[in-house]
C-alpha cells in the first residue's frame, strides 16, 4: 500500500492525508461491521421475543407468527433480486409453490422429518430458478418482468392440469395414510392410524415449536442476506442496478451475476415454501398464482426495497393487516367507538366499516399509495427520517459509511 501510494501520489497532495484518511476509513469500516453485529443481535432478540412483544396487538398466536417469519424469508430473498439489481421478478411465487410441493413429496416418500424436506424444497426451487432465470435474463426491464410472470402463470396452470399426477391438481397435494415414507419405515416408526405430523427429530412441528423453527431459519436467512449485501457480489449487483452499461465497459459480465442473484432469491422462495409445508403439510397450486407474486412485490416496496430490514417489516405489516384487520367486524368497531356520543359513534362506524373485515384490502391499498407517494423508500425511509429528526439534522460527517444507504435507522 505505502509503496503504491508513494509511486502515484500527486505532488500537490499533502503527505499525511493518505495516512489519516486510511485510519478514518478503517475505523469507519470496523464501526459498520459492529453496527451489523448489533443489527443481527437486535433482530434475533425481537424475532425470538415476538410472542410476547406482539401480544398487545393480538398477533401472538403461532399460526400468524409463523406466517410473519415465512413471508419475511420470502421477502428477504425477493429483495436480493429486486432490491439489489433492480430487476423486478413477477413470478417468484412459482418458486414458493415448487418449494412446497417438493417438501410435501419428501414427507410422503421419505420421512416426516423437516430437514430433508426443507433441503429438497430449496434444491428444487434453486434448479427451477436457474432454468427460468437463464431464459428470462436475456431481457431487462419490463420484458424481464413479463417473462417471469409468464413462467409463473405457466407453472400455475401446469400444476392445475397436466401435472396433476405430481401436484394432485385442484385438491392440492396432501399426506395420506398409505404414503411410503421409506426412511421412517426403515427406522422403525410405526405407521399410525391417523396422519403423522411433521417433526424435527421427534419434536412435533406444530404450534410454538413450529414458530421457533421458522424464527431460527428467518434469523439465519437475514444473516446470509447481510453477508450478501456487504460482499463484493452484493456491490456488483448494486452496480448493475445503478449503471449496467458502465459494468460492461468495466469488464464485468453482468449475466452470471444476475443469474446467481436470481437463483439465490429463488432458493429463498423455495425455503419459504417448504416451511409453509412444514407448518401445514399441504400444497396447492394457488400458492403459485400471480397474486402471490404481486404480494411479495408489495411487501418489499412497502418496507423499503434495497434495505436490509425493510422487506421483513413489509411482510409483517401486510400479514398483520390480512389477519387482524380482516377479522374486525361492525361489532368490534361499535365497541371501539363506544366512548363517543351515540350519533358520532354511529358515524365513525359507518365511515370506518368499509376499511375493515372484507374491506381490509382497501386499507392496505390506501396505505400502499400513501407510502409510495410520500415515502418512496418505504417504511425504512420513514424510520430513517424519524431517526434523523431526533439526532439533529442527521448530516453529521461521520454518518456516511458506504453501508449507510442500506442500513436501517435503528
Amino acid at each position, binding site marked *: *500500500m505505502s509503496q503504491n501510494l508513494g509511486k*502515484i501520489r*500527486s505532488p500537490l497532495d499533502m503527505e499525511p492525508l493518505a495516512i489519516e484518511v486510511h485510519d478514518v476509513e478503517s475505523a469507519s469500516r470496523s464501526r459498520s461491521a459492529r453496527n451489523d453485529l448489533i443489527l443481527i443481535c437486535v433482530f434475533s432478540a425481537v424475532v425470538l421475543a415476538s410472542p410476547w412483544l406482539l401480544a398487545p396487538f393480538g398477533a401472538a398466536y403461532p399460526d400468524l407468527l409463523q406466517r410473519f417469519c415465512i413471508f419475511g424469508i420470502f421477502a428477504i430473498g425477493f429483495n436480493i433480486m429486486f432490491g439489489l439489481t433492480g430487476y423486478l421478478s413477477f413470478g417468484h411465487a412459482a418458486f414458493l409453490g415448487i418449494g412446497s410441493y417438493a417438501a410435501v413429496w419428501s414427507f410422503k416418500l421419505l420421512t416426516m422429518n423437516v430437514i430433508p424436506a426443507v433441503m429438497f424444497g430449496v434444491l428444487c426451487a434453486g434448479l427451477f430458478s436457474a432454468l427460468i432465470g437463464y431464459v428470462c435474463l436475456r431481457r431487462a426491464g419490463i420484458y424481464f418482468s413479463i417473462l417471469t410472470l409468464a413462467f409463473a402463470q405457466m407453472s400455475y396452470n401446469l400444476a392445475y392440469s397436466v401435472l396433476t399426477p405430481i401436484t394432485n391438481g385442484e385438491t392440492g397435494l396432501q399426506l395420506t395414510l398409505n404414503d411410503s415414507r421409506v426412511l421412517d419405515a426403515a427406522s422403525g416408526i410405526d405407521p399410525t392410524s391417523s396422519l403423522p405430523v411433521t417433526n424435527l427429530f421427534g419434536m412435533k412441528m406444530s404450534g410454538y415449536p413450529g414458530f421457533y423453527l421458522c424464527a431460527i431459519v428467518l434469523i439465519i436467512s437475514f444473516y446470509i442476506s447481510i453477508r450478501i449485501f456487504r460482499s463484493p457480489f452484493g456491490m456488483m449487483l448494486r452496480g448493475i442496478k*445503478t449503471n449496467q452499461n*458502465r459494468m*460492461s465497459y468495466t*469488464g464485468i459480465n453482468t449475466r452470471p451475476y444476475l443469474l446467481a442473484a436470481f437463483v439465490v432469491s429463488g432458493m429463498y422462495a423455495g425455503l419459504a415454501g417448504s416451511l409453509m409445508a412444514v407448518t401445514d403439510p399441504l400444497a396447492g397450486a394457488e400458492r403459485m398464482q400471480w397474486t402471490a407474486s404481486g404480494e411479495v412485490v408489495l411487501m418489499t416496496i412497502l418496507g423499503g426495497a434495497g434495505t436490509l430490514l425493510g422487506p421483513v417489516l413489509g411482510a409483517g405489516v401486510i400479514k398483520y393487516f390480512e389477519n387482524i384487520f380482516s377479522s374486525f367486524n361492525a361489532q368490534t368497531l361499535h365497541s371501539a367507538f363506544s366512548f363517543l356520543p351515540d350519533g358520532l359513534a354511529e358515524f365513525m362506524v359507518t365511515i370506518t366499516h368499509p376499511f375493515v373485515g372484507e374491506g381490509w384490502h382497501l386499507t392496505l391499498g390506501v396505505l400502499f399509495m400513501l407510502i409510495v407517494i410520500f415515502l418512496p423508500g418505504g417504511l425504512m425511509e420513514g424510520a430513517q427520517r424519524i431517526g434523523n429528526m431526533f439526532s439533529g439534522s442527521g448530516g453529521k460527517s461521520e454518518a456516511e459509511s458506504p453501508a449507510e444507504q442500506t442500513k436501517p435507522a435503528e
Partner: protein
Amino acid sequence: MAILEVSGVNKSFGGLKALTDVNLSIEQSSVHAIIGPNGAGKSTLLNCLIGKLEPDSGVVNFDGTSLLGGITPYNINQLGVCRVFQTPEVFGDMTLLENVMIPSFAKRDGNFRFNGWGAVAKRGEVNDEALAMLEEVGLVEQRNVITNALSRGDKRRLELAMCLIQHPKLLLLDEPTAGMSRADTNNTIELLKKIGERGITKIIIEHDMHVVFSLADRISVLAQGTVIVEGEPESIKGDPRVIEAYLGGELG
C-alpha cells in the same frame, strides 16, 4: 510498435456513412488526439473500439487481438481498453469509493466471480488501492459521498480514476474537458500528463485545442467520416486542409 491498428473501417447507419475507410495506427505509450468538426465520426470510431458498435467492414487489432467479430465490451475491457465517456458514466447511486472499487474487483477477479460471503470492508488491499486512486485525482475527501451529488467535472475525474485503477494498456478519452472551467481544464491536463508518465497509451477526442496541443504526440483530423490529415501537432497547426475542414465546413 503499434498497439492499436485500425484499417479500412467502414460504418454506416442506414444511408448515412459515418466512417469511410478509416485507418489509424497508435504507437505504444503515445498520446494520440483525434480532432474534427461535429459529426465527423469521432465518437462512432471510439464506439467501434470498445465493442459498442460493430463496424460494417475493416480490421481493428489491439495488442495482437482482433476487437471485432462479436467480442463483448467486457472482454475488450479485460484486454486492457478503458474509456472515459463524454457524458460521465459512473455509478450514480453509490459512493465514490465504491465506484472505484468495482473496477478494481473487475481487474482482480475477471469478468465474473461469485463472492457472496466475504465482506468488501475486509478486502484491505482493494480499499487501499481505491483510496490511493481517489487521492490521486483529488477526490479522496469526498470518498463517502453519493456520486450523483458531484459536479460534472468531478464525475469525469472519478471516471478517469475508475479507468486508471485498472491499469489499462489503452485509455480512450472522449472530450475529457468538455464543460469544464479553465482551472478545471488545466488540472485535468496536469493529471493526464502525470498519468502519461506511466506509459499508458491514450486516444483523446477533444475540441479544445489548448488541451490537444498540450498533450498530443500525434494528431489525426477526422472530417466527414474519414481521416484527412495525420501528423505531428506542429504540422497540423498550419495545414490548410485542417483549416478548411473546420472553417470551410462550418462557414459554407
